[in-house]
């Protein structure tokens, strides 16, 4: 590597290199700004606004044109009616107006006071000023006319020109109205603290379990034996396969009525009735006369998380262990160190740093995990974590603002955790 110093940035060649680097990075930076960082900021923005799913459809002025009376022979008296309606149930429209092109061949006998006839591009048009319309406001404009020239005008010609509308509306997302309503709702909800607790249990046990299983698997696969590479490939299956496939296989495997596990438990007499593994919140287990409530569904989703992600820890820990020089073990063997002593004094210091990194990454990812729980239990039976709550609030109850507020809670929690963890994490020994 050539040393880089401040002065290197000033030469002509260096300037060109700098420009090139920015050119190479420009598309990536733009995409990430647009798809990751902008939404991140937008999430904070939305969390301070009372926005629901329905608000995403912007309010508009809906016009229905109707013709009353025959329009066939000269002298026919007919009416043109415009029914208008504000489509939004929440937001007003301001400075609303409608304009419709009118053909020639009839004379207007009565004009709604809100309307006037204007000439337009060689023909004429009706322009009606509706002013400000409240939410859900509706009304009717009527024009009475007498037919003069049946060749120039009939129902089809009148219908052919669609009325144009003009109005100013506020978009719920871009208005500058903020409130703390969402946060109040989120924090005062009875189940919020339960959800937070579930999230923490899920994350801590899921992360620790996946790391321990990964460590165990790495120890096993460190030894050479026939068929080792096949088994190593097999152990990565849970991580590689689509979550949708493995989650539903677990659901089928543990199904209370047609699942293999329940059939096995019933047949061997371990369980008296079928256990609804993903649908039952608690099971009473009595140990020495004490009855404990054991959270079944939560344990199952934690087991699934461990099952699905131990391969990742396994892979990294194995790669690290294989990079430890073999001669230090030979030396330890000569000195009579037992296998466990070798593990604690030699292997562990080498893998401590990778364990710390994996713990941090897995903790963050597990805390953010949504699809696993959503597919297994739908967040029922005491398995609702914060991420499932984001979905529930935003899309099931269609309160986008509250969902965004829960997402902010997740973000802040992770930020605090990461800062604390990085400060106290073990440093590399190898």
């Amino acid at each position: 590597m050539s040393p880089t110093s401040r002065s290197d940035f000033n030469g002509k060649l260096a300037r060109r290199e700098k420009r090139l680097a920015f050119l190479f990075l420009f598309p990536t930076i733009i995409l990430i700004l647009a798809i990751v960082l902008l939404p991140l900021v937008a999430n904070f923005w939305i969390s301070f606004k009372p926005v629901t799913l329905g608000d995403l459809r912007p309010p508009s002025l809906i016009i229905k044109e109707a013709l009353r009376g025959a329009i066939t022979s000269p002298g026919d008296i007919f009416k043109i009616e415009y029914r208008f309606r504000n489509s939004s149930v929440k937001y007003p429209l301001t400075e609303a107006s409608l304009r419709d092109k009118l053909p020639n061949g009839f004379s207007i006998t009565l004009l709604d006071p809100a309307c006037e006839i204007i000439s337009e591009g060689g023909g004429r048009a009706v322009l009606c000023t509706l002013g400000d319309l409240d939410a859900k406001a509706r009304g009717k404009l009527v024009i009475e006319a007498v037919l003069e020239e049946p060749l120039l005008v009939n129902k089809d010609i009148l219908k052919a020109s669609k009325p144009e509308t003009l109005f100013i509306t506020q978009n719920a997302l871009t208005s500058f109205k903020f409130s703390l309503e969402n946060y109040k709702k989120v924090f005062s909800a009875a189940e919020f603290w339960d959800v937070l607790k579930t999230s923490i249990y899920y994350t801590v046990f899921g992360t620790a379990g996946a790391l321990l299983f990964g460590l165990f698997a790495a120890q096993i696969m460190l030894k050479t034996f026939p068929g080792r590479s096949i088994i190593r490939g097999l152990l990565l299956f849970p991580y590689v396969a689509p979550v949708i496939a493995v989650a539903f296989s677990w659901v089928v495997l543990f199904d209370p009525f047609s699942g293999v596990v329940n059939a096995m438990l019933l047949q061997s007499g371990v369980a008296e009735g079928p256990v609804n593994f993903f649908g039952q919140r608690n099971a009473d287990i009595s140990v020495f006369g004490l009855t404990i409530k054991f959270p079944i569904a939560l344990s199952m989703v934690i087991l699934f998380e461990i099952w699905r992600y131990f391969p990742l820890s396994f892979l990294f820990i194995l790669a690290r262990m294989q990079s430890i020089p073999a001669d230090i073990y030979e030396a330890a063997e000569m000195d009579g160190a037992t296998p466990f002593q070798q593990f604690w004094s030699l292997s562990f210091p080498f893998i401590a740093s990778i364990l710390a990194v994996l713990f941090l990454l897995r903790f963050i990812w597990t805390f953010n995990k949504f699809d696993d729980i959503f597919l297994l239990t739908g967040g029922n039976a005491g398995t609702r974590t914060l991420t499932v709550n984001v979905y529930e609030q935003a899309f099931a109850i269609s309160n986008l603002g509250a969902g965004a507020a829960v997402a902010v809670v997740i973000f802040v929690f992770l930020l605090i955790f990461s800062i604390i963890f990085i400060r106290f994490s073990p440093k590399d020994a190898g």
Partner: protein
Amino acid sequence: MRFWMIGIFASALAGFVWVALWHLVLTVTAILVTGAALPLALGPAAFSGLAVGAFAALQRPASLNRRRISGIIFIACSLFSFSLGAPFDPGSLLALWQRLLLLLLVSVAGWLSIEKTVGPTNAGFMTRYGTEKFYIRLFWGLGLIMFVLIVAVPFYVMVMTSLKSQHSLLINPLDLSINYDLGVTKLLSSYIELFTDYGFLTLLINSAVVSIATVMITLLFSVPGAYAVAKLRFPGRHWLSASVLLIYLIPAIILVIPLYAILSQLGMRNSLFALCIVYPATTIPVAVYMLRGYFSGLPSDLDDAGLMDGLSRLQIITRISMPLSMPAIASVALYVFMIAWNEFLFAFMFLDDVRLFTLSRGIVSLNSSEVPRQHLMAGAVIATAPVLFLFLWFERFLVSGLTAGSVKG
């Protein structure tokens, strides 16, 4: 010298664990393969294991084969007598040869495992070193079997369930045998129905289009980006390469609400195009991170030589750096393909139109009480097969790329 364990106890413990475990594993396998409702008589198996373990420790030194044969016969006889003459199958659900085969398999597997675990010990006291070695051998074997089973069973159930009919699933959930008498079309009826009635061909094509587009866009963006971060000098370089990983850690669930809101208002949400810009944004950071590691390992002299010969930087990337880093690029491509193929959250949130569904999105709608379970599992197999096939084909690339590129030390 302190003594840690007595050899005969260790040996009996090994026998106890192994014979009971093999009995359990092989009986359950027999149940699943044949569909017969066999009892899990673990007690007799554990007792005969205990006995044979003690026997192994007291065996006279003889030739390996003679020890083996006597041990295997010992297990078979004790299993037979402890279970009162009717090992495995009191109701005679299996043919005689099947019962004998099961007995023989348990005996052989049990004895070989005991032999491997106990090793060169005798009935006397063991040192701490020997004791720890013994436990490590015991747990090595137990762990290996456990990991293979817990990984393989869900996949096995997935494949086998997809080949059953609703009727036979309800009659006996434990019967996961393949009934060859039905013929190929009957066996594969779930798959045929998915492709004819549920439009799985469209789902497959959609998934493939989105995944391949994601791989292309990711590589197109990340190769020059990673090259710039690895080889070019510019202010903010270190800051940028550190922040790349941070972006990867931003959870998708935080982005999903604003992206949903913005894309809805732009009228772009319900489209494959939306997925094709959102997926690369989530994969590019990790791709840059993996490729950067590989590019900075390539000697800079090569680039300099290229510059001297009058190549532009873009030509250096396409003619020197990329050919040299094909393994890394292949592993990134594979990894990104897997992420895009398996992605569920955005596909689930964004797509409303059945004709635009990806596999993940389409299979969720199979999870209802109106659709039979074997259809759901057949869908799962269809989603899993391509990605597992790719993974097995390129496993070496993926494993080295993941571990070497992404986390160093």
